[in-house]
Structures are given as structure tokens and as C-alpha cells.
């Protein structure tokens, strides 16, 4: 009798636990859903005052003027420019590091490289911002002109920040390339470089692209580091050495004091940012799914 009750208790615990665990797993998707809903909810009232066309295409952002202007085009372009600079600088370096790690993996230097990448990944963004402000800004000012606070400085700092992201994922992709493929290439007399550039990289291309897309996502979403070095001028930056403001910088600068439509406009900016990143992430998921299916 006691055993039966004990068994029932164990069964009940079993299904009860399963329910709790299911709930825990669901939290992520519920959270994503809630985030989208809340942010959009706060963002939509903007449309009562501002047309979509003005919001996306006007370069005038002047919420405290009478009448107010809410155009984020300059910020969209600034975010894009900064990310582009970051990618141009980061991709060659990360690919090199990835190739080195996967092809020359044995020696001690590779170990140091790995540790360096991990440490770089762990440095908080505010510290990157501090470093950027005190070291990169004067550097850019002296070499390129302007006052140093610029989209270029922001791009440089972002490049360093996304190196670990791109390297980690590309490395996985490169290590998944079939060893047979590599061996046959070497057997046919190809040099190391030829094997890398013509066989390995193309084979790992989808993984590399995923990693770049994730790096892109990280760069677009970065706030504190770019805030300290970008200059934060709410105008259209004509050249990379000009001061500019990205979408993220706009949100954090004005959020503390914005009210009503100004506030909703900032949430609209956030919604835009969220949308872009969600789409990017979904693309990555798609790419890796297709890759898995191909296998």
C-alpha cells in the first residue's frame, strides 16, 4: 500500500517536474514575445504625430523645437557606416586568426591567441568606451583630423569588440570542414594557402557568413562604447571623421528626459533596432538549418 502511494507520488513529481521544466524553457520565447509587444506598444503612438516617411527618411532630429522633428535617417546611416567600418576592419583580422587557430593549432602561440580572444570577449563595453575615449580619439584626431570623436573612432572600437564573436563562430565552421577534403587537396599538391583559400573557406562559407552576420548584429546593438567616442551630434555625418549619432546612442541620450511623442519616437527607434537584429538572427538560424539539412 505504502509502495503504491510512494509510486503515485513519484509519478506526480515526475509530471509536475516536467511541467515546471517546460515552463522554464518557454520563458525565453515568452520573453522575446513580451519584449516585442511592449516595445512596439510604446512605439506605435509615435505614428499619431509623425508619418512613417518623415521618421525613416528625414535627417532632421529636433524634438524640442517648435514644431518638433523626428527624422532618424541620419542615425540609420550612422549605424550603418559605423558597422561597415567595423566589419571592414574586423573581418580580415578575425579570418586570419580563425585560419591560424584551425590550421596551425598545435603550438603554444595558438594557445596564447585563444586566451587573448577569450579575454577580449570578456572586457566590458564601458571599458572599451573608456579606452576608446582616452586612446583612440586622440589617435584619430592626430592622424585623420577632426576632433577625434567620430564614426571612425566608433568603428575602430567596434571592430575590436566583435573580433571574438566572428572568430569563435568561424572557427567552428572551419573545424567542421571534412578532413578528407583537406587531405585530398594536399595530396594533389596544393600549397597550404591554396587549400585554405580554395577548399576550406568555401566549404565553411555559410558558417563564416553566419558569424559575420552575428558580428554585424553585435555592432549595430552596441551602445556605451560608441556613445563615448562617437561625438553624439544629432546631425548627418558627412565623412567618417565627423561626429555622428547611431540609433543606439540616440535612445540612451534622450531617454532620460523624453516625454510623450519624443519618448515614443525613441521606442520607435528601439523597435527598428530590434526588428533589424531579429531579422539578422533569424537569417543566421535559417542558414545553419539549411547547412544541417544539407549534411
Amino acid at each position, binding site marked *: 500500500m505504502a509502495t503504491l502511494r510512494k509510486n503515485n507520488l513519484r*509519478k506526480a*513529481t*515526475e509530471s509536475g*517536474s*516536467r511541467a515546471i*521544466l*517546460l515552463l*522554464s*524553457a*518557454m*520563458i*525565453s*520565447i515568452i*520573453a*522575446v514575445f*513580451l519584449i516585442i509587444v*511592449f516595445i512596439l506598444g510604446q512605439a506605435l503612438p509615435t505614428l499619431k504625430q509623425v508619418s512613417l516617411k518623415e521618421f525613416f527618411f528625414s535627417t532632421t532630429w529636433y524634438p524640442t523645437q517648435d514644431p518638433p522633428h523626428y527624422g532618424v535617417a541620419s542615425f540609420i546611416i550612422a549605424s550603418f557606416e559605423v558597422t561597415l567600418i567595423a566589419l571592414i576592419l574586423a573581418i580580415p*583580422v578575425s579570418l*586570419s*586568426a580563425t*585560419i*591560424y587557430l584551425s590550421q596551425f593549432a598545435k603550438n603554444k*602561440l595558438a594557445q*596564447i*591567441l585563444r*586566451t*587573448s*580572444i577569450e*579575454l*577580449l570577449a*570578456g*572586457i*566590458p*563595453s*564601458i*571599458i572599451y*568606451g*573608456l*579606452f576608446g575615449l582616452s*586612446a583612440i580619439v586622440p589617435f584619430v584626431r592626430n592622424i585623420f583630423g577632426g576632433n577625434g570623436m567620430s564614426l571612425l573612432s566608433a568603428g575602430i572600437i567596434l571592430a575590436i569588440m566583435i*573580433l571574438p564573436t566572428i572568430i569563435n563562430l568561424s572557427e567552428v565552421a572551419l573545424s567542421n570542414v571534412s578532413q578528407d577534403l583537406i587531405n585530398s587537396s594536399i595530396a594533389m599538391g596544393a*600549397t*597550404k*594557402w*591554396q587549400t585554405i583559400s580554395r577548399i576550406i573557406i568555401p566549404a565553411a562559407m555559410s558558417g563564416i557568413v553566419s558569424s559575420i552576420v552575428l558580428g554585424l*548584429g553585435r555592432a549595430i*546593438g*552596441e*551602445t556605451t562604447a560608441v556613445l*563615448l567616442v562617437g561625438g553624439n551630434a544629432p546631425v548627418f555625418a558627412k565623412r567618417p571623421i565627423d561626429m555622428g549619432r547611431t540609433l*543606439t546612442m540616440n535612445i*540612451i541620450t534622450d*531617454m532620460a528626459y523624453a516625454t510623450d511623442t519624443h519618448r515614443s519616437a525613441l521606442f520607435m527607434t528601439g523597435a527598428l533596432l*530590434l526588428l533589424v*537584429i*531579429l531579422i*539578422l*538572427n*533569424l537569417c543566421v*538560424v535559417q542558414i545553419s538549418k539549411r547547412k544541417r539539412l544539407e549534411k
Partner: protein
Amino acid sequence: MINRNTANDIWIIVIKLLSFLTIFLLALILGYLIFKGLYSSKQTSRTVLNTIESNLDFEVYSSKNSSIKELDWFTLQKMGMGEIKNLRLLTKENVSFELYIEESQISKFASYLNLSEAQLRSHSIKLVNPQEITNYQKESGKILITKKGEKIPNLFKKVKVSDDVLVVNNSVIQTFDNKRITKLDEKQIEKLRNNEISNWSQLNGPDLNALYIPENQIYEVGSIEGSYSFAKAISFEKAGNLGITNLETLKVVHIIKGINLTLKYIISPAEESGKFGGIITIIANTIFLVILTIIIAGPLGIGAAIFLVEYAKKGKWTQFIRTGIDLLAGVPSIIFGLFGLIAFVNFLDFSFSLISGSLTMSLMVLPTIIKTSEEALKSVDKELISGSRALGATKIETIWKVVLPSSSKGILSGIILSIGRTVGETAALIFTLGSSTDLAKNIFSSSRSLSMHIYLIITEGLPINDAFSSALLLIVLVLIINISTRKIMEKGQKKNERQ
């Protein structure tokens, strides 16, 4: 046509160079931050020149743990006149100030400061007997004036007094064409001393001949345009008192060097919103934030991972959940901040508090915990599991008693990674945690974390040296966290290999 082997070699070199750039960047960043965090250099301008040797006939001491190493004549005079009640304007210490003078030195000190003995005595000056000096112990905020050569206990340290000034006729600092000389640096002062300057325009001043006047004729400086003299501050003041007009002093660049991050700074509580004191309250608040976040996110993340590994069936639903986790991982920190602001601060009415901050951070670190826990759970030896089930244990019992313990190292590393993330986060916490520098009384108190403190120092314009010292501390913490994660993971791997 380049030989393909040469091409190969060139490319290999390029790859190696670019890879090492990564190591170089890390070394650069860490080295720079460590240097700035430890060594501070502040440039200001002041009236007195940097004295090489002061030849006073009395000694000046300050409390050993005070940061005063040097005083200028004008500040010393203010101290004698009782105008300085608190050291907060001179140093970062919010302590009240007391001046102690040995009875026998009063007249010397008074004449040195161009004050009468009566003036000196009428302010809160404490007279001290050399024998009783040991009573006035470690407390900060004391300046002691004693006989030259007197033996002073180790609780005090000598202070240098600078009392030279550069006196000029006021024609030298007048505005010409909207410009004027405001200060000179060491090199320019040297040139003046060595008689290398014949005209003030050489020092970016007006077009006037620079005429040197010896100190004993300092009164002449008032009447000759372009003239200057190196004199004692007291001569300058006496000249002023005698009614000599047109006498001015030219300011000099003064560089204060010191150690930035000190143990004292780390363990002192923050006062007046970070303007004075240290950062221990902020460190404590950061620890509270971390503990609270782990309490919330740990069970949720591990639970989700258990579900995915042990219970989930391959299908659309599971894929849906996994996509959700990946998407959550990609959301930028500022969006989390905005969400936290609406959901926790406003909607749930938790206001700016520890709880709002940790709920927000929990969402941010959840994907990390889930992913690492998943890896750890998957790598548990399948035989262990089947063995347990064979013995009649239910699924949940197996998980609780077999799977979790053997994957604990991996799970722990995920948690430690999340701790690192929490400690380093800024954007998401700005809108949710608050900004108070006081020790949080409960989970509804406003507080700030170490990263936020650095951000707020920069945006509030507090001395940037503070930002560097806090940054150094933060980096050290993050490095420790990183290294321990790797050690734990390595141990876990070795354990698996051995099995």
C-alpha cells in the same frame, strides 16, 4: 607571374601577422588600462612655482595617511587665518581640518605668513607640546608645525612648502587682440630664469620687452612695463599691502602625480554620490546584483536546459523554443534596458531598484546559462543514466541525483560567465538599477554597479582618474572570473577524458 609557393608564403605571413594583431590589441588595451589605473597624472595651473628647495626655519608635517605632500604658501596662509575648515577642496578626503603649532614656532610661523601672532592665535590653532605629539594619532586632516630638526613620530610625514612666485607688471597679462598669456609651463619658466626671453611675444604674450628685476627691488615691477621678478610669495603680498599697484603673478602649470587605485579607495564607502570617498559600497551593490540575478536566472536556465536535453522531442515546438533562445541572445542590451524600464520599473512598479536590475539581467544571461548547461548535460556519460534508470529511478530522480551532479562543472562555468556579463553590463542597467552610491538596504533600493559607476563618472565629469581606477578594479574582477571559468572547464574536460 609569382611562384605559387611564394604566394603561399606571403599569404601565410599575412595571416600570422593579422592573427598576432589580436594578441597585440589585448596587450595594448590591458597595459594601457593598468598603467592609467595605477598611475595618475593631473595637470592644473597654480600661482606658486615648483620650488626646488624650500629653506624654512621650521618644519611642516601632515598626517601620515593624508594625501597632502605639498602645500603652497597661499593655502598655508589660509590655514593660518582659519579659513580652511575642511580638506575636501584640497584633497578627496571629507575631513575637518586642524592646525597644530609648537608654541616656540608661533612667531616664526606668523611672520612667515605675514600675519601677526595675535591673528594666528585667534583662530582655531591648537598649540602643541612636542612631548605630547604622540596623542594626535592617525586621524587625517592635521597639519603640524614644529621646530626644525625635532624628532617627530612616524605618524606624520614631511610636507614640502612652495613659496616662490613669478611677479610681473600687469601689462604682461593684459588682453591684447582678445588674447592674453594665462600660464607658463616648466620649459618656459626655465627660459625665463636663464635670461633667454627678451620679449614677451616669445611666450605668446604681448609685444613688450621682458625686463628682469631682482627680488629686493620688487617694487619696481609695479612701475616698469614688461618687467618681471622671481620672488617669495610674501614679498609679493607685502608689496601689495604697501599699495604698490600693477603687480600680478603669472600662473604656472603644475603636474600632480600619484598612485591612482589604492587599497584605501577600494575599501572606503562612497560619499556624496562618488565625489568623495571610495567604492566599497558600489562593489557591495554589484555583488548583491549578481547574487540576485543568479538566484533568478540560475534555476530557470538550468531547468530549461534539462527540458531541452531530457524531455524535448524533435519537432516544430522544440525548434520554436530554441529559436526563442537564440533570438533572446541577440537582443541588444539597450533594448533590454528599455524593456526593463517599461515592464519592471513602471508596469510592475518596482521603480529603480536592485530587483528591476536583476530581473533585466536575468533575461540577458538566460541564453548563456541555457546553452552552457545544455552542453554540460549532453556530455554526461550515457551509461550512468541508463544504469540509474535500470535501478528503477524515475527520470526526474535520475536527473536530480545523477545527471546534475556530473554536469555541475559545466553548469557552473555557464553561471560564472553570466556573472562576468552582469558585472560588465551598463546600458541595460542604466534604466533599471538606479544611480545611488549608498549601500542598498533591500531589493527595492536604488543602487549602481561598478560598470555603471565608470559610465556615470565619465558623463558626470568627475575626475577621469576615478574612472580609470574603477576600470582597473573591474578588469581585474572580470579577468579572475574568466580565468576561473577556464580552470573549471579544463578540470571538467580532464574528468570526462579520464572516464
